[in-house]
């Protein structure tokens, strides 16, 4: 009888612990969001990626449709090569979609915003983005502003 009580109590305890882990997985870390099951990859070449990091969100009109899978430097083109993993259900992006690196808020993390073009063909796995727009680098902006001031 006593043993049965111990077993019940420990069973409830283990269930609680696993339940807590499950809660952390689903509610806190949203595990499904990061392990996008079916994705296709598209590559974009940027002059300057600023502070973009791997796993940063990829959005269209602010809706998240994928993430940055990898960032490399391409020594042939002298540009940064950014690989985007986009969920397969979003297969409607036109071939001339433009990618820009934006910042969430003034100090927030950087993400990639896609802007659909007008082409009839759509992006497929392994395609390259035709138009990219670099991240804003504050130093360059200030530098340009100062040289403009000087010429006046």
């Amino acid at each position, binding site marked *: 009888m006593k*043993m049965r009580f*111990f*077993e019940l*109590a*420990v069973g*409830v*305890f*283990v269930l*609680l*612990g*696993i*339940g*807590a*882990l499950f*809660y*952390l*997985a689903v*509610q*806190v*870390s*949203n*595990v499904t*969001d*990061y*392990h996008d099951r079916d994705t296709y990859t598209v590559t974009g070449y940027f002059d300057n990626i600023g502070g973009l990091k791997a*796993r940063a969100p990829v959005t269209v009109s602010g809706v998240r449709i994928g993430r940055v899978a990898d960032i490399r430097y391409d020594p042939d083109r002298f540009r940064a090569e950014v690989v985007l993993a986009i969920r397969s259900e979003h297969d409607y992006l036109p071939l001339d979609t433009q990618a820009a690196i934006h910042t969430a808020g003034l100090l927030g993390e950087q993400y990639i915003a896609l802007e659909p073009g007008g082409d009839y063909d759509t992006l497929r796995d392994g395609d390259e983005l035709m138009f990219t727009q670099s991240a804003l680098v504050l130093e360059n902006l200030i530098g340009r502003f100062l040289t403009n001031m000087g010429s006046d």
Partner: protein
Amino acid sequence: MIDAIASLGRSSLNALEVFGRAFVFLLRVLASLDVVLRRFGLTVVQIHSVGVRSLLIIVVSGLFVGMVLGYQGYITLVNFGAAEALGGVVALSLVRELGPVVTALLFAGRAGSALTAELGLMKTTEQLSAMEMMAVNPYRRIFAPRFVAGFVSMPLLAAIFSAVGVMGGYLVGVGLLGVDSGAYFSQMQAVTDWNEDVLSGVIKSIVFGFVVTWIAVFQGFNAQPTSEGISRATTQTVVISSLAVLGLDFILTGLMFGTG
């Protein structure tokens, strides 16, 4: 002068000896782990006394730590107009650091000290020798089940602590201070990664569980068989495990997040 050097040498040798005995003890416990599968009932009773009966203190402290995090995080974040980021702050600090560390400290105080006192008293009243007389191996009958119980309970307790803490932060942040409920959870999900944050926390708590139980069980085994010896061993358990947990946490954090 010579005496001073000799006493320094003696105390270092003693320290080394204790360390070696603790390691041999650990090996012997690990070698008799098969008893856990053969007589599972022994372990269940220990998980009850080590894990289930620590639940109350873990849940209550988790709730309050989460609520305090909610308050303090809000007070700081609202200055930057970023009160919406509260969920992320609460979840990250709980899952990465406070969950495993505070749980381990509480666990050392609540369960580790009890383990040491119990085993020390067993040794003092010569129950361990009596068992050996009856050809019952105390490593299998006494030490291994307690060791496994602590090792299993700790990660579960830490997960419960973090989950309850997140709810505590929700209570204060959303209920009291008026942070948007959707923003609280969406921010949390945006910054917390399953592999990088939650699993690292779980690994930490597994390591802490191992170390704290090892120290507690060994201190009980190694206690001097007097009432004073038991009291010293119990104190040592709490002090050494707390220091070990904090030191290890620094090393583990460096390994896990240092390069990121």
